[in-house]
């Protein structure tokens, strides 16, 4: 009969209307800003730089290798390397970024910088409330604004952060083992040399022994490792 299709449709909308008073399925509105949809663990908005220590600028994991700058598809990262080096989390001397700027007005949240970073230094934040009336000042963010602690990372992406922390702990353990082995090897070499020198000194006139190598304290290995607790 003509009209039954329309009536059926109206019954459907009536069901929806009535349901919207009691059926949780039909109550879809999330009243932002009072209510918020729970952030998904994988959610990503804009990159941030991870730091490990209290002072954000000292503990930045970034070593200014510029891989992300090169791989960023819209080219929205700008990095200037430092002239000097400083010890990173595992005690190795590394460069650090003097300038690290991201132009948020260009960033397309593709996460490629995170994927290519070999140092677990850049990660994706979930902050999206960034609307701004200032085009030039508000959207070009520098390293001070980008630096966020590892705790923040653990809070927003717990699973990912655990994996990243484990990887770093392994790196640190490796570095420590290597440093230890280096020290031992050096000590052994020094001991051998000393023994040789003594043997030589016994045969040769005094004064030659002074040329024997003196073991140097290995500064990088001794530096306190600012390692994250895994």
């Amino acid at each position, binding site marked *: 009969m003509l009209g039954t*299709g329309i009536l*059926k449709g109206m019954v459907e909308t009536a069901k929806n209307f009535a349901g919207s008073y009691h059926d949780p399925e039909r109550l879809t509105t999330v009243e932002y800003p009072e209510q918020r949809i729970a952030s*998904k663990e994988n*959610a990503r908005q804009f990159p941030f730089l991870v730091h490990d220590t209290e002072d954000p600028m000292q503990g930045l994991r970034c070593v200014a290798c510029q891989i992300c700058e090169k791989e960023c598809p819209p080219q929205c990262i700008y990095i200037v390397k430092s002239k000097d080096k400083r010890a990173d989390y595992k005690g190795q001397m590394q460069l650090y970024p003097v300038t690290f700027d991201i132009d948020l007005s260009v960033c*397309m949240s593709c996460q490629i910088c995170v994927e290519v970073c070999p140092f677990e230094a850049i990660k994706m934040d979930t902050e999206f409330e960034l609307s701004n009336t200032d085009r030039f000042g508000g959207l070009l963010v520098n390293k001070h604004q980008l630096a966020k602690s590892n705790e923040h990372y653990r809070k927003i992406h717990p699973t990912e952060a655990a994996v990243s922390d484990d990887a770093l702990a392994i790196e640190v353990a490796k570095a420590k083992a290597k440093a230890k082995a280096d020290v031992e090897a050096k000590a052994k070499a020094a001991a051998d040399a000393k023994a040789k020198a003594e043997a030589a000194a016994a045969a040769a006139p005094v004064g030659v022994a002074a040329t024997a190598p003196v073991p140097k304290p290995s500064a990088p290995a001794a530096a306190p490792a600012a390692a994250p607790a895994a």
Partner: protein
Amino acid sequence: MDGTQFMTFHDLAYDAGKTDFQRKAEVIGVGREGELLEVAMGPQHPSTHGVFRMDVVLDGETVVKLKPVFGYLHRNHEKIAENTSYLGSMPYTDRLDYFCSLTNNWAYALAVEKLAGLQVPERAEYIRLITAELTRVLNHTCLAGFLLQDMGALGTPLMYAFREREKILDLFESLTGARMMCNYMRFGGCRCDLPAGWLAEARKVVAEYPKFLDEFDALLSGNEILMARTQGVGKLSAELAINAGITGPMLRASGVDYDLRKVDNYGIYSRYPFRVPLGDHGDVYDRYMIRMLEMRESLKILEPALKDIPEGPVVDPKAKLRGFRPKPGEAYGRIETPKGELGFYLISDGSPNPYRYRVRPPSLINLTILEDMCLGQTVADAVITLGSVDIVLGEVDR
């Protein structure tokens, strides 16, 4: 013009010796004199799905000429891709057809895998199939909403469609991190594994979806106004559809059995039996119904696939993320996206950037015969005919 089997407006328009009006009159079969009205619909027009523009010549309310004008969203995807690494183009493919970023990802990944000879692990194939079918459901749901919006059913169907869309977008977000621009697939697999509990969530959404489809069917498919508006409107014959390179649901609505999921057997589609719905009349109603039926078939693929998915790696260990340089050569890879055949034609010269990067956009090519479908109809029908083609401007203009 020998070789053309079909009388189109072009054939007549370029025959000499007739006045412009005579030619138009011959095409639509009217002989009466009258004043013609030229209307530029778009680029800012609520019914043109973005910034599409049609220059329409009207005789009263009848369309006598319709010229689509493109380029208002031409954002140089191909040129940019030729200056970017292979990986760097992946997020840009999301922005082609912004409803279906995951199928776009797949098409591009497939083309690069053909170019470089990469293998995809079993689990990644399953993830690709699941996400692609979810995308198809998502796209068709939204299309039904937009089509009804064009017909004047303001609000309700689109609201219902977007309510369901959010459920699938939640799945995408918890898997890929973004709602629309997923950037999820990689050459030789996928970017990351499924998060814990994702499969259970997906199963829940898939299990509940038929309820929504029933609701939508009850609301719309039998509705007399919808039938009156769409049946017999915008007819497209099978021969013209094939010759004009129409693909996807629009081709199948004209009764041509050509679905790349069956023809090319890419991915693991051969493992799941599903039917390809075919239309009979090739009108707007058929195109609408094909999509409703395709959603049900997609759910039929999704249900067992979500059960069968094996454990294992999600990316080919040989595939490199950085410094990816395929050997010189070329490849054309294509898949069946919700809009039709999306192809990527890549030429490599051995450098990290593709030498030529071409997208074969289904939306653009499906518009080829828009004029033929609209001639002789009223301007209101031209709007719904355009709506039933299912275009996304990001893909039309790239």
